């Protein structure tokens, strides 16, 4: 606390004597400074606040606390106190090491295939014989004589089971074991994902722009070592437009096909992001916001119901309103999610699952609203609040009376030591002005004008008494803090303001005398 470097204790602001207890100080005041009812009052208020803190810290041991005893229901489960989470062991690193070494090999092979595919597509002749020569020039084929059986199905080749070659790796297989990669697909594979749409608009692309785009499309490029030239694309386009062409696909082996398919799936995954995502994200942020406000609200509500004057009723009401509004938003968004997908009996399984997911999200939102938002207790009405406050004051009074009694009993014992303390403090006089100034400056740390021009206006009016200026500054900060819903700071600032006011009074008084 900021009081550290200042005098601490129950000090009379006028004669700077330290009184050990608030009761003594008040008594002293009543006896010696009767003429200043204002100060007396403000002092009493201050003590009231201090007492609240003290009472809280003490846990009100001297009073039967009904609330806590009511809450202590007899739970039958044994409570062994806090417990830490059990042992865990991670295999992530080992897993990834193995996966990476393996995938590196795969991606190398895939890259090789893509590059070959690109070369094949480049200037692919229409004529069958020419095309075969072109293909063999790029990928050397396995010699026919070396292979007697189809490596995949282990059946021997004969007149009806002809020998075929994979166009990508040159391996031999029978017709049944062959897979086919259509030229359209092949073209899609060698070009980045976004290219296709653009091509429809401008069939003849400039090579420079094209390579640019390749650089941008990270995934498409990451495994593509070499960019396709414009000529290759032209040839592809030519092929597609020429529907008379009899072979619109490459014959490939299963292994190559699998590799290419896996790459395609990976690519698709990166671009897939359904609508529900956006809604869900929105809902999630709203829920987080609501949680934030609920926390603030409960703090305020507890304080208000304690009869404290840290927060004010209107603010609490406002926060509650805000929470309700966020609740409405959550409700609307979740309803929207629930109606995103509609199904009937014939719908696909995946659609049904999506439907179920959305319904569950909605259910969760409802549970959340019911448990968290609708249960927030209402702000006490003004009358109720007054009643609570009064009750609290009664309690404090009772406490003070009790304390006084205690003190009087202890008085005799303490008298000796008290005198010594007094001596010490008498030798270190400090002006009350500096005290409160210090307090204000320290406590307002961390709270600046958040870039609003209004902050400067205050500074310009330097002609004012520094105290008044400080106070109006504080008022401005309070307003600002309230606008930004930082109610803790409002409370702290208001406390400062009050202290400042009392100090100001004190100064005025000493000036007059």
């Amino acid at each position: 606390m900021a009081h550290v470097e200042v005098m601490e204790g129950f000090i009379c602001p006028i004669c700077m004597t330290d009184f050990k207890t608030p009761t003594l100080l008040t008594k002293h005041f009543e006896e010696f400074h009767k003429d200043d009812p204002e100060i007396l009052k403000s002092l009493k208020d201050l003590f009231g606040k201090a007492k609240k803190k003290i009472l809280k810290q003490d846990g009100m041991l001297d009073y039967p606390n009904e609330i806590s005893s009511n809450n202590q229901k007899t739970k039958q489960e044994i409570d062994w106190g806090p417990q830490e989470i059990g042992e865990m062991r991670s295999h992530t690193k080992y897993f990834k090491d193995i996966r990476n070494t393996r995938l590196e090999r795969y991606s190398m092979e895939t890259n090789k295939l893509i590059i070959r595919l690109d070369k094949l597509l480049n200037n692919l002749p229409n004529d069958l014989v020419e095309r075969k020569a072109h293909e063999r020039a790029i990928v050397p084929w396995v010699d026919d004589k070396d292979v007697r059986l189809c490596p995949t199905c282990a059946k021997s080749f004969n007149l009806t089971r002809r020998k075929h070659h994979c166009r990508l790796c040159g391996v031999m297989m029978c017709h049944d074991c062959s897979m086919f990669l259509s030229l359209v697909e092949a073209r899609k594979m060698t070009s980045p994902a976004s290219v296709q749409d653009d091509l429809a608009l401008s069939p003849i692309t400039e090579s420079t722009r094209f390579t640019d785009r390749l650089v941008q499309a990270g995934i498409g490029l990451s495994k593509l070592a070499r960019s396709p030239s414009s000529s290759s694309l032209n040839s592809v386009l030519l092929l597609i437009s020429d529907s008379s062409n009899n072979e619109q696909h490459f014959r490939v082996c299963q292994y190559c096909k699998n590799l290419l398919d896996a790459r395609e799936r990976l690519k698709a995954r990166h671009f897939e992001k359904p609508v529900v995502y956006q809604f869900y994200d929105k809902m999630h942020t709203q829920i987080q916001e609501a949680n934030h406000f609920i926390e603030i609200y409960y703090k305020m509500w507890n304080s208000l119901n304690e009869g404290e004057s840290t927060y004010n009723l209107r603010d609490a009401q406002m926060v509650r309103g805000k929470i309700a509004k966020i609740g409405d938003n959550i409700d609307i968004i979740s309803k929207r999610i629930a109606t995103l997908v509609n199904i009937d009996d014939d719908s696909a399984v995946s659609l049904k699952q999506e439907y179920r997911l959305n319904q569950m999200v909605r259910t969760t939102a409802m549970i959340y609203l019911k448990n968290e938002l609708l249960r927030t207790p209402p702000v006490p009405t003004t009358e109720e609040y007054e009643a609570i406050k009064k009750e609290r004051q009664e309690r404090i009074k009772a406490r003070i009376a009790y304390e006084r009694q205690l003190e009087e009993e202890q008085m005799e014992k303490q008298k000796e030591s008290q005198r010594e303390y007094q001596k010490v403090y008498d030798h270190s006089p400090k002006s009350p002005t500096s005290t409160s100034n210090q307090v204000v400056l320290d406590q307002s740390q961390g709270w600046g004008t958040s870039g609003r021009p209004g902050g400067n206006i205050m500074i310009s009016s330097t002609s004012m008494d520094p105290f008044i200026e400080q106070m109006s500054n504080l008022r401005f900060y309070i307003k600002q803090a309230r606008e930004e819903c930082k109610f803790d700071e409002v409370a702290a600032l208001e406390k400062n303001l009050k202290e400042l006011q009392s100090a100001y009074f004190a100064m005025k008084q000493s000036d007059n005398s």
Partner: protein
Amino acid sequence: MNVINAIKYYVTKMTEESGPGMKVLLMDKQTTSIISLVFSQSEILMKEVYLFDRIDAAVRNEGLKHLKCIVFVRPTEENIRLLSDELRYPKYGVYYIYFSNIIPKTDIKLLAENDEQEVVREVHEFYADYLAINSHLFSFGISTCSKGLNWEKPYFERTVQGIIAVLLSLKKCPLIRFQNNSDMCKHLAEKIRYVLNQESNSFKFRQESQPILLILDRRDDPVTPLLNQWTYQAMVHELLTINNNRVDLSNVKGITKELKEVVLSAQHDEFYANNLYLNFGEIGQVIKSLMDEFQKKAKKHQKVESIADMKAFVETYPLFKKMSGTVAKHVTVVGELSTLVANYNLLEVSELEQELSCQSEHSTQLQKIKKLINDSRVRDIDATRLVMLYALHYAKQTSNDIAGLYSMLKKRNVPEKYTKLVYSILDYSGVSTKQINLFDREAVAKITKKLFKGLNGVDNIYTQHTPLLTEIIEDLIKGKLNSQSFPYLGNTVITRKPQDIIVFMIGGTTYEESLAIYNLNKQNPGTKIILGGTTVHNFDSFCEEIEATVVGTIARYKPRSVRDRSDFDHN
């Protein structure tokens, strides 16, 4: 040492590690039970887990690529295979994989090789590999763990894994003690020590004191699971059967649809949490006051006249609704229990059971059993359990009339599957091989206790029996447990009083023993005791266990009544 918390922390950690976003939980049969025991669906939903899927489902869905998938499975061979398939053709976006137990490196390698699409983000071992029933009670859900008086291999493996998981999740590295006269105990103890040594890197915990793992055999105390129970949880399990916190009430006449299956979870049902250890009489009282309170509230809500009334109603409505659900549930359950008690004359049966288990008055008890066998209200299984208790108690007495009672059961047309238990239980317990007589010892203790209780006037004739377990644990707490009958594994002998005790009962524990452990925990605040079993038995499930256990052994006890003519007629 709270096993429920241990599981909860793991699951919470799982859901947090994957960050915000919609999640699906992929589980196997056992992990589904493990999680559903400690989390309600709404709790899981609040953790952004919206869908639940089984890895072994026959028809797997297409999947949703934008979901995060949390995989929580046991590291079984089958699961590894299924998970490999899943990774090769992933149905969800990214995967966070958690195994409930120690997994061999080769399996991790296999999975890594199948993750060609790089969908896996994390792979961990989280040792939530047991059913946490109460904070001090766990089970592995193995209904019959032995065959021919020895372990069945798969269940042995499961038990070892389960106990290792309990130890890891509670961060305990224990000294092991076991029941010396049981081979199964010794076998299990040695295997656990082997794993502890092998995985010694995982078991380096800072421990204030060395915990004790005590391994016991059900066969040493076959009496406890035979008795009818009168505390709420135990009684519900005995008469209605609790399965994963769920009670099937569909057999109850005129039951409403939503009460066909009720969930009794101390985690989520405050009434149950407060009353699960109360006896039936007390429960009746509590239910009555609950009803009164409910009616008072319901009445108050009925007259909604002013706006203020309405407002109050709306504000308390969720609470009101919740309460009405609780009331309806417990009223139904308790109502059903009291019907069963009255219909089956359970009070009289139970009184005799208690006498049979605690006192030795052969002739009067024999008369009473005969009387009850002839009572048409008494169920077949209750008649059987009386004879079983009698057989256990008086098997060594030459003048016993087991054969006579057996033929009486036959005359009563009690099904064969029950009558044969009369002799099976003798083989199961191995009465003749036992040096100490279970009943004698208890009888002595009981006489003094009874005298004491009688003086205080708090004697309850239906709860005279205390399980053997209580005695063993009391001795253990005092540091007086016989180190001949319950030796330490290895050379270590600790004379200090243990602070943390983990008791494991091979062949299943009971809710009566759970209550005993609960009470011991309350009586000894410095000591923490948890109890586990291969399963939690009631009479029915225990009968199955007995049958499975004695299968293939040479029966020492056979119905002598083969000579009995009536027996021939039946066969």
